[in-house]
């Protein structure tokens, strides 16, 4: 089974890396960029059924993949 965990910064948390990327995109002349926030994507393969996978992925995100002080995460089981 394939799954994806997406980790993003919480609203209001300063993201200096996102800001730097935003600046670089603007300097490339790419128009219409209002803002950039950088996050992380984890593509994970795992065994078991969907419910087991969702439980395992939530535990993985809570315990390691995300730091919930500053980050939110979303778990998607892709089947």
């Amino acid at each position, binding site marked *: 089974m394939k799954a994806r965990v997406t980790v993003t910064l919480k609203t209001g*948390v*300063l993201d200096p*890396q996102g800001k*730097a990327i935003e600046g670089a995109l603007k300097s490339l002349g790419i128009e219409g960029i209002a803002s950039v926030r950088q996050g992380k994507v984890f593509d994970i393969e795992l065994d078991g059924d969907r419910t087991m996978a969702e439980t395992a992925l939530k535990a993985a995100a809570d315990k*390691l993949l995300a730091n919930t*002080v*500053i980050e939110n995460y979303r778990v998607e089981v892709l089947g």
Partner: protein
Amino acid sequence: MKSAILVFPGINRERDMARALRLVCGREPAMVWHAETSLPEGTDLVVAPGGFSYGDYLRCGAIAARAPVMDAVRAFASDGGLVLGVCNGFQILCESGLLPGILMRNAGLKFICHDVHLRVERSDTPFTRGYNAGQVIRVPVAHGEGNYAADADTIRRLEGEGRVLYRYCSPSGEIGDTHNINGAAQSIAGIVNERGNVLGMMPHPENHVEDIMGCTDGRGLFAGLVAHLERAA
């Protein structure tokens, strides 16, 4: 003082720390590998040193914080044992839940490697009793992620409970944006946990302990710990 230095793959300041502890405390620290599940008998101080554990993969300190030895460190801290985390060690202590908050990328995005001035906010703690309250010390920093952040409630609690022990400042002790090298909340350079027995700090006091280093301002931290333990004994 019997100290134990935690060694994780990718750490590179453990020998500096061992040298400083040996010099100031007169005793060889134990080096404890991350896969250990216990600390040496009679340990008084556990130190998480600086470096780049696991190459800073995922988040700085995130993987080291989940190493087997950290359960022993958590148990040691909950029994009141003294724990010091410097630089990557501070990041590890935050990731392990022993300290609140997190160290984010420096606001200016650059790796900062030079001496800074720190104001010692109080002297009545094991980690600052070698100094006077308000004293300014000069110690080096070397980090890319030292920008301390936490939610507003946590910052209020840290301030309200006097848990900010070291702050970035000017040579004469003024606090302000110009002297806040990495953009840390409230110019925070070092904080303690609620109980006051776990300190995390970004600067490296272990690198200013001998005349040959050009400054010995860092000695006070270690000498203070020794004095604290002698007094407790």
